[in-house]
């Protein structure tokens, strides 16, 4: 029950999606439609599970008065505020002018973009440590990063203004992104994809079982 049925479900779901790709006709196209609908519903429930688990853990933290319980109160209040406003707006919850849209624009959006923006400072400090031309490979990394960064801002073309139009930093940055970068990305992408294919096969055949956890 605890191990065999999940393995069977994994195998059936995987095989149906593979067969449907090669035989997109009845009954496999219908199975695939069913599974896609179920996937959407279960994915939504998985997000709900995560949010409800956060709610539960925050409540436990407050109940036990653990360190930082005050922040858990703020988390719960904000979670409830967003959900109450979102559900009260109905199906058009995200339309311009709704309360949900207001919270998104003036709370969620500034917080998320600033969270990612401060990474610029950490990236700068990390690059200071990493960007030392210790060997040829590190020098290549340094030069590529430098050219791409400089080529993406107006000062790049200003500095290389004396060069012929096709040789300026912006064009050089574009060439690096278009060719050597593509070559490396492609090698990585093909490697990752082959890894995903073999991992998927292991999951479908029941060889890989770690996702089922213990006992």
């Amino acid at each position, binding site marked *: 029950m605890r191990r065999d049925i999940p393995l069977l479900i994994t195998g059936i779901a995987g095989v149906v999606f593979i067969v449907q790709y090669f035989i997109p006709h009845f009954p496999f196209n219908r199975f695939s439609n069913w599974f896609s609908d179920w996937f*959407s519903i279960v994915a939504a429930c998985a997000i*709900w599970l995560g949010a409800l688990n956060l709610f539960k853990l925050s409540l436990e933290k407050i109940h036990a008065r653990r360190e930082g319980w005050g922040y858990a109160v703020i*988390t719960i209040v904000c979670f409830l505020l*967003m959900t109450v406003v979102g559900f009260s707006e109905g199906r058009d919850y995200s339309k311009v002018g709704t309360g949900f849209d207001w919270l998104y624009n003036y709370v969620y959006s500034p917080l998320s973009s600033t969270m990612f923006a401060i990474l610029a400072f950490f990236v700068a400090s990390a690059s200071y440590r990493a960007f030392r031309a210790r060997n040829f490979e590190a020098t290549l990394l340094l030069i590529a990063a430098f050219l791409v960064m400089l080529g993406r801002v107006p000062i790049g073309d200003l500095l290389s203004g004396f060069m012929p139009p096709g040789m300026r930093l912006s064009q050089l940055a574009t060439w690096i992104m278009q060719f050597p970068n593509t070559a490396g990305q492609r090698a990585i992408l*093909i490697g990752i*994809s082959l890894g995903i294919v073999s991992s998927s096969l292991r999951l479908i055949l029941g060889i890989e079982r770690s996702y089922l956890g213990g006992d």
Partner: protein
Amino acid sequence: MESGLMHHVALWLAAFLTLGIFSFLYRDNTWYKVCEAIFVGISAGYWFVAYFWDNLYTKFWVGVWVTPMADRPDDWYVLYVGAALGILMLLRLVPKVGWISRWPLAFIVGATAGLYLVTYFASNVMLQIEDTVRPIFGAENDAPIYEIIGNIVVAVGTFTGLIYFFFSKEHRGAFGRAAKVGIFFLMITFGASFGYTVMSRMSLLIGRMDFLFSDWLKLIK
């Protein structure tokens, strides 16, 4: 509350939250932690609501309750299976029967594995190889010089990069030298990706600074 006042409240709130997150650059502090807690709560609420209306309501509720019986497909009742799997997933919150959430999890894992196996192989392996093996001088033998060099670079870089990732043979001799060239290409890729990431983060930072100095403080017109 009139809209002008509401707009000012919104600007001050957004500025308070933006500066709160920036305060982490000094050190970890209460202001930052408050903003972080708000972010966690608001994000969880956002996805909770979005997935309800976009997935649960649209897929299940509309299919089972809202659509008139005459307009439904003949297999509409299978949506109940999806709902049952969803409920089993939520049972993870009940420790005694939490193990049953492995069933929907197994479904998600299996469906994703099946989907990825074919799509990744078709798009990320076959199409990428197809795009690499191209006429060096262009389809009509009229490619400019920078493109000819670029096509050679892509073909050599992809091939040697793949050799570097091939660990079943020791990297010695000609094979090792090819792997070394592969490393050079990978380093250029990492450098370019790094530079690109830095610029995207800088762009976000400029956006936040623009908000603070232009929208909020009105110092920049």
